[in-house]
């Protein structure tokens, strides 16, 4: 039986920070389990930077200002006690990362450079060129190697074992061998990232961002908080959803429809392309819905034209972007406009964390941090640069929290984890032996299509009802899915099967949360309820799963300092 005091699931920024801190107590046996090799984690994709009020570039900046900006950005749905804790502790984390060797870009005084970012009242985003997440991820991996963290690379979390609201352990598969193992653990940190893949290709997220840990917690009785809040980035590449930086619009790029018109004049006559992210995303979708886009259905797009900037400016200011467009869309921005469409970028909601200082969930022994968790500091809309910050800071405190949990708790029951593992073994065997059924890829594509069309940027009760029905149907189809690979070893078809199951489970929660939130707030834009409604909806959604039934509850928002006001920029 594999036994650890603390198991960290996930090796992104949150997971490795947690593993690092949990393993500082040398009396504890700690493992960090990840379905992909640690440095492949999606934290590496973060380009822009990480927010902390260092005050290096603007001496008037302060954690207090960062606090205020974050609350306002969240459209007042963030818990203010948690945000204050977050912004107050961030500067120390940046220094710590510096001490770990993160190669930050520097200012003329040799201090960490900071840049302005959307929604921030001071330039407080620390960065390393346009590869901030990448360098942080690698530095954390180095620190984990230094501290001899035990990595279980390419191990896949299948489920958590919770009985009578007590955590016993978990079940995971060693992908390389196909063996399924029960694990006993006193505490676990779930740090498995977001689940933008409910929209499949219409996301900036990596292929594996399927919310496995979120689904595992959800299935184990922990509620999801605010799953309806999904951030869309306006300029994803049309065919792949890959992110083209906001800098394109910043430098003066045009957005044009099939009629060759700069359509933003209809939606934001003054700011035009420089209107905020959510507004631009909505405008693009309106054009497509009105039949002024190119292509059809999921393949539809509009164009971003940078040609008028001229070769010189493009080469000087946007060389990376040009390369991305060339490599991934086959388009040279200097000569042609590039097809783009909004792309799902980030999940504000996630595993309900009930204590921001320890990242504990309602089930003792289970902690959660990073994009998979909802503390909540992002509320209805996350500010750029606040996620990598969230990930490293709360990853650290989750590691400490789990360490303390492990010291207090005994190991759980072997029989329970063994039973759960047996269940998965037989499921794996069944799926390997099946020779016919519904193709998994078809289920996945159908899910993405309804989620995109009906629970995407614009939402309307009637359409969401259709989506809900379809997701229910797909959950049914899923029971008849077949994977087409009988092998034990490195069976990515089976892994993908489990991932799709998780996505469907979570997609349903997104739809339910969205249907029931009859207001527009932050990223959640309802055509049938266009106003924010503080009277009825200044509260967090909590969705519980009991067997196949989903139950909705609500939780008050913690407001300590900044009473809700109109959100104007």
């Amino acid at each position, binding site marked *: 039986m594999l036994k650890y005091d603390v198991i960290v699931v996930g090796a992104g920024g949150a997971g490795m920070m947690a593993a690092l801190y949990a393993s500082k107590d040398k009396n504890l046996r700690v493992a960090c389990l990840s379905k992909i090799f640690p440095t492949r984690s999606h934290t590496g994709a973060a380009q822009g930077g990480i927010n902390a009020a260092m005050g290096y570039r603007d001496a008037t900046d302060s954690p207090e200002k960062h606090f205020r900006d974050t609350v306002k950005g969240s459209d007042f749905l963030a818990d203010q006690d948690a945000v204050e804790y977050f912004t107050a502790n961030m500067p120390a984390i940046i220094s710590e990362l510096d*001490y770990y060797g993160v190669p930050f870009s520097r200012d003329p005084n*040799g201090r960490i450079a900071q840049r302005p970012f959307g929604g921030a009242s001071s330039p407080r985003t620390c960065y390393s*060129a346009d590869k901030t997440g990448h360098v942080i991820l690698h530095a954390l991996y180095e620190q984990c190697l230094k501290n001899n963290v035990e990595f279980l690379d390419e191990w896949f979390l299948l489920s958590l074992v919770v009985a009578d609201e007590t955590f016993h352990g978990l079940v995971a598969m060693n992908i390389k061998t196909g063996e399924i193992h029960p694990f006993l653990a006193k505490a676990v940190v779930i740090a498995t990232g977001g689940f933008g893949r409910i929209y499949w290709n219409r996301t900036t997220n990596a292929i594996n961002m399927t919310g496995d840990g979120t689904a595992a917690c959800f299935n184990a009785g922990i509620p999801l908080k605010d799953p309806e809040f999904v951030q869309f980035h306006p300029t994803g590449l049309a065919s792949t959803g890959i992110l083209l930086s906001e800098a394109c619009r910043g430098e003066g790029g045009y957005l044009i429809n099939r009629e060759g018109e700069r359509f933003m004049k209809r939606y934001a006559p003054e700011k035009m392309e420089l209107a905020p992210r959510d507004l631009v995303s909505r405008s693009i979708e309106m054009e497509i819905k009105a039949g002024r886009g190119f292509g059809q259905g999921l393949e539809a797009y509009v164009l971003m034209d940078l040609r008028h900037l001229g070769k010189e400016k493009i080469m000087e200011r946007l060389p990376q972007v040009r390369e991305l467009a060339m490599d991934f869309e086959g388009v040279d921005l200097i000569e042609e406009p590039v097809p783009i469409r909004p792309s799902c970028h980030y999940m504000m909601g996630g595993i309900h964390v009930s204590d921001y200082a320890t990242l504990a969930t309602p089930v003792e022994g289970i902690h959660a941090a990073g994009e998979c968790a909802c503390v909540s500091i992002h509320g209805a809309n996350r500010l750029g640069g606040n996620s990598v910050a969230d990930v490293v800071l709360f990853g650290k405190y989750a590691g400490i929290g789990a360490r303390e949990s492990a010291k207090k708790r005994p190991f759980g029951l072997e029989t329970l984890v063994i039973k759960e593992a047996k269940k998965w073994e037989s499921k794996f065997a069944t799926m390997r032996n099946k020779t016919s059924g519904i193709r998994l890829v078809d289920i996945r594509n159908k899910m993405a299509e309804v989620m995109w069309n009906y629970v995407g940027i614009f939402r309307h009760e009637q359409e969401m009802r259709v989506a809900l029905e379809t997701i229910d149907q797909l959950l049914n189809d899923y029971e008849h899915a077949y994977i*087409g690979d009988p*092998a034990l070893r*490195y069976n990515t078809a089976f892994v993908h099967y489990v991932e799709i199951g998780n996505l469907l489970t979570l997609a349903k929660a997104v739809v339910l949360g969205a249907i029931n939130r009859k207001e527009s707030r932050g990223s959640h834009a309802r055509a049938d309820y266009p106003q924010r409604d503080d009277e009825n909806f200044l509260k967090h959604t909590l969705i519980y799963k009991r067997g196949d039934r989903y139950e909705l509850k609500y939780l008050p928002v913690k407001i300590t300092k900044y009473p809700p006001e109109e959100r104007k920029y």
Partner: protein
Amino acid sequence: MENITFRIRRYDGTNTWVQEYRLPYEKGKTILWALTKIKDEIDPTLNFTSACRHAICGSCGVKVNGHAFLACKTSLDKLLETFDTSVLYFEPLGNYDVVRDLVVDWKPKMEKMKKVKPWLLPSREGSKEEGFRQSKQQFAKISSSTDCILCGICASECGQLAINDGGYLEPFIINKAYRFVVDSRDNAPEEHIRPVLENELWKCIHCMQCVSKCPKEIPLTDEIAYLRKETMKMGEVHNQGARHAYAFYHDVKKWGRLNEMTLPVKTDGMVTTLRKRIPFAYRMIVKGKINPLRLPKAVKGIKGVRKIYQQVEEESKS
């Protein structure tokens, strides 16, 4: 062209075979697009790894027609043009243990990487509470080497690794060591350099494959040259590589060119040369690579060469 043929080397843990798939040609697609399409629409048993799909996670290195590429970043059009064919042969990265199909094992490489202490050994100038000061120039020194995404392409292409018995370090490991050696915040560069030296630093054969294939254009051979110089400064001059470098130096100074005939003698010593190099030299003669009967003459511009030496020597004194 109507179709592209993909011949993929498969492996299931026991058997190896080549499987053929065909896809209709589409303009502007990547290798990863093709692999994904094959898995989604033709054969779910095919396995490969990918994640970010935009050249930052390093998961998707794969060999096509004998050369390693990052699958998500490399366009099929470019490959078809380069190889002038509609048949592409896929294999897993070279110099790795294969897990299944195109999936390779990274675990042993990371165990090996630990040899160079791949973490910052922080100098006393910084602290966990305050961090460090680092000038822009100092940052510039680590900017390129920290671009490495651990994709393994350099290791797959490395000429020395291919013939080595496991002692030589993967170029990305050397890069990792270099990255700390030149970091102003690191207190003990020697602790990263020494393991690199002890793991056959001088065996790089300058084939330049790593540099020319690295998707992040990291100047790996410049880093190797730098580390070699550092080891010589550390007084590590009695190893084969350093002696080779000195021999090189003396030959060029004297003749303005290398004397392939005497170089091995100076590097290895006479006895070892006779024992080890004769078969090699014999092959070289047969292939017309060296002419043992022609003694070197000084090249025409030898005066110029000597001047360069003089100047460099003076500069390094000042």
